[in-house]
């Protein structure tokens, strides 16, 4: 987990897009909550989100 975040920070630095980091943290947090049981179910196939 830590390695990925290190990579991600290095990636955003390289791409000069550090402003995306807070969004990542919020969304990953929400995502993790969802993994633990709030939302289940299949989603239809839409390219861009995959």
């Amino acid at each position: 987990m830590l390695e990925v975040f290190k990579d991600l920070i290095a990636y955003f630095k390289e791409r000069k897009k550090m402003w995306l980091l807070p969004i990542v943290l919020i969304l990953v947090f929400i995502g993790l909550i969802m993994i633990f049981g709030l939302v289940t179910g299949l989603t239809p196939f839409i390219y861009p989100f995959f």
Partner: protein
Amino acid sequence: MKVILGISAYYHDSAAVLIVDGQIVAALQEERLNRIKNTSVFPSLAVKFCLTEYGIDLDGVDAVVFYDKPFLKFERLLENFYANVPKGLSAFLKFMPEWSQKKLFLKKELKRELAELYPDSNQAVQLLFSSHHLSHAASAFYPSPYNEAAILTIDAVGEWATASIGYGKGAEIDLLQEMHFPDSVGLLYSSFTYFLGFKVNSGEYKLMGLSPYGIKDSVQTKQFVETIKTKLVKLFEDGSIQLNQTYFKYRHALRMIKESKWEKLFELPIRKEGEELNQSHANLALAIQMVTEEIILKMAKTAKELTGSDNLCLAGGVALNCVANGKLKESNLFANVWVQPAAGDAGGALGAALAVYHVHSPSKCLKPQNGEDLMHGGLLGPEITDKEIEQYCNQHGLKPLVFQNDSDLCVYVAEQLYANKIVAWVNGKIEFGPRALGARSILASPYAMDMQSKLNLAVKFREDFRPFAPIMLKEEAATYFGVEHPAQYMQFVHKIKPEFRKELPANYNDLIFSDRLKIPRSKFQAITHVDFSSRIQVVDNDSSRLGQLLSKFKSLSGDAVLVNTSFNRNGEPIVCGLKEAFDCFENTDLSILVINNHIFEKKE
């Protein structure tokens, strides 16, 4: 770097490819083994096959390359989300668990899968990532027969890029221009696929097959084209496009389009899956096909201007649009056009591996001097051995007819085909890519008036409007279709020459589709679509088993032309091994199953 394993997975069309010293040793889509069409799982079975084929395990692999850059894709998802917030929040949150669980941690995930597959492996294998469109470009250029070429890749979306123009020379590929999400030819075509009631990402070829039923000169088709070009898409001279996002939903919802706006725009209700098709649906399919062709031709023109090359290589899902490929070839914009047979994401695994190889070995020239490509005819997967057949026969009490030489076998099968029997033909290694090229095929005579509906309804169990493709020897392709370019991978649609067409009745276009199919169009009724077009496959090698079969059929019928369709039923992956071959044979109206030199016949 000698041995490289390429992988595509987690989106659709999972596959593994092994290259050794820049040569393709093995390539396989996971669906062929796990039997789930377009499967997106990690391709464990395909990886195992590829490494076993070369007699190594993971320790023998120098690098594993994934065909896509997950962080770059994640960046696109985030920026897209940010640009549309608060719209799209619920859709985005549905996908977050998968990203926060797996896709964001792809490096770890891939290592875990490989370790699970090879628990005794000693070394930590080097893991690399290639960008999506570089993978496509590499899959198009490196295996092509050309030493230098323009490269055009077009698909729905990779990371940011949805299309790219590049130039390949020797070991180098330069990507010169890119078109970015949300503007995408693939997404545009898929939106129409969705509106016309077919499944996104698998129904596009049905839309393409429907388009010839459209009437080109009708007021409605012309209106549809005009509407698409004025309301939905802005076409620029260089082939780039801008989609009017007020009509699309894919950026922020779980649907492709704003349905009610489209219904108003085309004055047509959205078609639900399975609903009957009518002339308006066909006209709309033709309209989007025509617009797509116009875009592709403009992109190709730009590629020509940028590179000055006489050769063009194509890949990406849109490169499977063989009607557009045929038009591109006939435009003579490029003297030579080569399309990667696995143009979709499975081919990305091949491109990713080849891209890494050429970065590390830039001085090696691998192109054969005889003008052939490096794809081995696309035959890169597992084969069924005679020993396996014998074991299967012993287990199931089967007594096949066994021929000792190919000539006798082909005479026998040709006679059965000429008697209008439908034959399943399994021969050698399975194809890599979506098309059956004669290794896992269903073959039939092209002459019978009812062969198309018989194949659609009693063998393939699919929609009756769908066409079938011919396989033929080189001289037939030249005689009947004027095709003299190598078309061995079934990627180009051409029309039968006017002198071989039959005159159509005046009310032809007023007939319902099933009645139109019954009108004689050419002597090859089963492979001539309603607009006289055919997706040609040319067999260049007369001495191959398939070449011999075509020659024997010619000696009976006068033409070395057969129907060739994939050996499967609707919705299933192409047959790979014995179990599914017999399952498909026994549960359809197939008369004969040929596996290598063994023949199994159904009792009348």
